[in-house]
């Protein structure tokens, strides 16, 4: 073999390598952040909500199976949060208001889960819920007191919580929808209220066909 234009050939090979590298690294030029990758993976896996004990804003204790047979719309928060959480909860209340009333409480349960059980006791949660128009029944706020149970839930649902030095937490936020069998079926962008409300309503209307 007597190759010519060797540098052009090696450039071409390098370029090809680059295209393959980026293709693999971004799941086919789709996913540029780990958060998108996380959501995609969750949608594939549809993890089961683990059996944890919740303590809600009225101090009632029950396991997650309390909501069996209902869709559960979930957000994760901590009440001392000054940034994303209030926005997340305001958006959640917007979704709550957009879902047709006949489904609320019967077919769908709203649930805000605190990942800061030390500070978010039932009284704190009860004060906090009022600020967002939650009725404490069809939309409850709860903490998971057992640290291990809490962690297993966060791990399974891909919620990453990093405490910082000022007693705050950095965390990723989304709307989570769990189906009546306790499986996570949707992770939605919490800033797109309309889309989330439409999607949830559609799922409710299809009347559990997707179960």
């Amino acid at each position: 073999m007597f190759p010519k234009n060797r540098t052009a050939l090696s450039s071409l090979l390098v370029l090809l390598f680059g295209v393959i590298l980026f293709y693999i690294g971004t799941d086919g030029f789709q996913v540029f952040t780990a958060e998108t990758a996380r959501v995609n993976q969750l949608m594939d896996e549809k993890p089961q909500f683990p059996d944890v004990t919740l303590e809600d804003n009225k101090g009632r204790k029950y396991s997650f199976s309390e909501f069996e047979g209902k869709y559960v719309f979930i957000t994760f928060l901590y009440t001392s949060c000054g940034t994303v959480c209030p926005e997340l909860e305001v958006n959640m209340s917007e979704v709550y208001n957009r879902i047709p009333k006949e489904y609320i409480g019967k077919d769908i349960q709203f649930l805000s889960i605190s990942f800061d059980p030390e500070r978010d006791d039932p009284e704190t949660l009860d004060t906090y819920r009022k600020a967002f128009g939650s009725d404490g029944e069809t939309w409850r706020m709860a903490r998971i007191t057992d640290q291990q149970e809490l962690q297993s839930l966060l791990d399974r649902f891909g919620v990453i919580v990093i405490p910082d030095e000022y007693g705050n937490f950095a965390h990723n936020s989304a709307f989570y929808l769990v189906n009546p069998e306790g499986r996570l079926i949707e992770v939605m962008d919490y800033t797109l209220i309309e889309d989330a409300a439409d999607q949830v309503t559609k799922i409710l209307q299809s009347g559990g066909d997707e179960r």
Partner: protein
Amino acid sequence: MKQSGYGFLLLLALMLPPVSNLLESIMITHMHMQMPMLVFAGFLMAKFFQKRFPQFFEKWNENGLPGILLFTIIMVYWSLPRTMDEALTMTSVEAFKFFSLPFLAGVPLRDSWRKLSSSWKHALIIFFTVLFLGMGWLYIWSPVQLCNNYLVIEQITLGWGFITTAFAMVVYLVYSYFMDFSKYE
């Protein structure tokens, strides 16, 4: 040959778990200290490969362009928010980082740089200036947290690190445009 040894030692040192954990614990040191040092380790080790395989570099990287292209691809790849995040959570990605930055970026950079004409060199610096400004803009003004493993404040710090580096490159470009470097050589 001594410097290749130092380069290898530097790579080994960076791979030590306490060192890598420390550098990776802060976003800006991960991207602007650990990664460049890995490239530098490869840069030092390049001498070894050049002596060992002179033919290979002569033939396949004659004008320096393939090498610099490879360098650029690897650098851009590690600028993606996702790759940096996954290096922390996935061992295979972390391993690829410790291999690709020295051997696929550092080595070709050294072999290519002296072969490039000054206009290519300037084009490359301009490219990285634009890229760094873009990355800085992305990390500072992005409304979302791009990396799951770091705080937003670290993301903003990293953004300013990019802008500062870009500024330094602009200073160099302006300076080299108005000054005649050949008089020094």
